[in-house]
């Protein structure tokens, strides 16, 4: 089966329940969307992420009530450098949606979603530990995998993979 080209036009995707829900609330919060390989990604403005998550969780039409995962991708050296990625699952509707927030290189920070889902606690700590992204409002933002006194963030693309530290 050949791959269908990705749809990146927001107008074509506005029927999707998550996009419709977010645009009805605040159309400025949705920076873009992509439908590729049967998966939907929505780009969210940095300042709106916590409220967007709370909205999607409580959306009566399609409640995305389960946070599967939080992770990050480093697109060094292009800017904006980081993409923080949230995978949401709707247990009643068996749907998935991916939220993305783009962050620049200088002191990347965004609001924590632990108030919406307590499960974000460890996921965000891991992103903080391995990528150095700060989550404001996180109850316990400390390193989780690496030792406390470690320097640097190993999953960043500019972290050296060989030689002495």
């Amino acid at each position, binding site marked *: *089966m*050949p*791959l269908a080209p*990705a749809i990146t036009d927001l107008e074509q995707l506005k029927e999707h329940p998550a996009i419709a829900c977010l645009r009805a609330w605040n159309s400025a919060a949705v920076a873009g969307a992509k439908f*590729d*390989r049967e*998966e939907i*990604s929505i780009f969210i403005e940095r300042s709106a992420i916590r409220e967007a998550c709370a909205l999607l969780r409580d959306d009566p039409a399609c409640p995305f*009530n*389960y*946070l*599967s*995962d939080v*992770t990050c*991708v*480093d697109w060094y050296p292009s800017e904006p450098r980081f993409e923080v*990625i949230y*995978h949401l*699952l709707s*247990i009643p509707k*068996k749907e*998935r949606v*991916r939220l993305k927030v783009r962050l620049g290189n200088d002191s990347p920070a965004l609001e924590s979603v632990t108030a919406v*889902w*307590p*499960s*974000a*606690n*460890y*996921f965000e700590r*891991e992103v903080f530990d*391995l990528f150095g992204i700060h989550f404001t409002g996180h109850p316990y933002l*400390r*390193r*989780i*995998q*690496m*030792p*406390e*006194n470690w320097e640097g963030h*190993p*999953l960043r693309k500019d*972290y050296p*993979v060989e030689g002495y530290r």
Partner: protein
Amino acid sequence: MAHLTSTPVLEPVQDRTMILNMGPQHPSTHGVLRVLLEIDGETVVRIMPDIGYLHTGIEKTCEAKFYQQVVPLTDRIDYLCPMTNNLCYALAVEKLLGLEIPPKAQWLRVLLNELTRINSHLVWLGTHAMDIGALTVFLYCFREREDILRLFEAVSGQRMMTSYFRIGGVALEPPLGFFERVREFANRFPSKVDEYENLLTGNPIWVMRTKGVARISAEDAIALGASGPTLRGSGVDIDLRRDMPYSGYENFKFKVPIAQEGDVFARYICRVQELRESIAIVQQTLDGMPEGPIKADAPKVVLPDREKMKTQMEALIYHFKIITEGFAVPAGEVYQAVESPRGEMGYYVVSDGTAKPYRVHMRSACLANLQLLPKMCEGRLIADVVAAIGSIDIVLGEIDR
């Protein structure tokens, strides 16, 4: 990971409480989990898991490998269910490539995946029962586990780190007589599950140690990110095999065991029932195993057969190119989740169009499940902590990666 010499992670809030350190080298923490407990007498006031002792940077390592070289790394993440990890990664890359997998390969994958689930649940049952004090069950479980490991060895050459699923299919045809051996095991196994249940389910000591212990409500379980039997033990009816089928699971009939109580006993019942359902799926795969190729028809991605490689020029060239240069994967990203024995195992693979993955992230079911521990244990006795850790079935290799 908290540094042992730095300031303590947890400090006592009152004079009457003390801090107890459990692990990382403790027999009932299933690996190298360190748990810090603040206790008042024998009652747990606060509990804090401390992880990272097994962090090996697998996600970073993946970025330096070709796509097919990542498969053996996925075994090492969760060493109790290697095939599930192989499958999840292979499915993610196949989705990125847009590959179609022949039915026989899909059915073989389901067969081995369910054997892996039984294998993992047997280790869980044995060690969990041993933690709580029922030593005999461990020996019984490992007796059957040995049979499964021999089957794995027959099909892949390895007992634990199988790496049998490849991108585009499976590595080899199963050997002659393999399906008969699986059939023989599948016919025998349900009576063995009866044996385990005879030892535990009605056993008053077992029931007292597990019923009503480490209770968690459905709302809390969802909010804290639980999945798999840990979530189903709290009455949430979700199983990715049935609800979002992958690798041909829609062809099989099976029940999803649910329990309502949300305690250690409910999770135990869910997993034991899953053993029976898994063996039923194995029987179905044996009854309906389709004929045909075991690898996708994609010469640029799938290694050619040895025989063809030795006789056909083109196959030799493809073989050489795949080994030396890998294969380019179209740019994009995929999140593929499968139902591992522990819950939702997810692989998020990002491709930038080259032969090496730009980013591979594993969503670990255990990492999320571990977050339930404080909710389960606070206000209860220390002995219940051991039961609670066993009941969420953690594998530290998967948590730390």
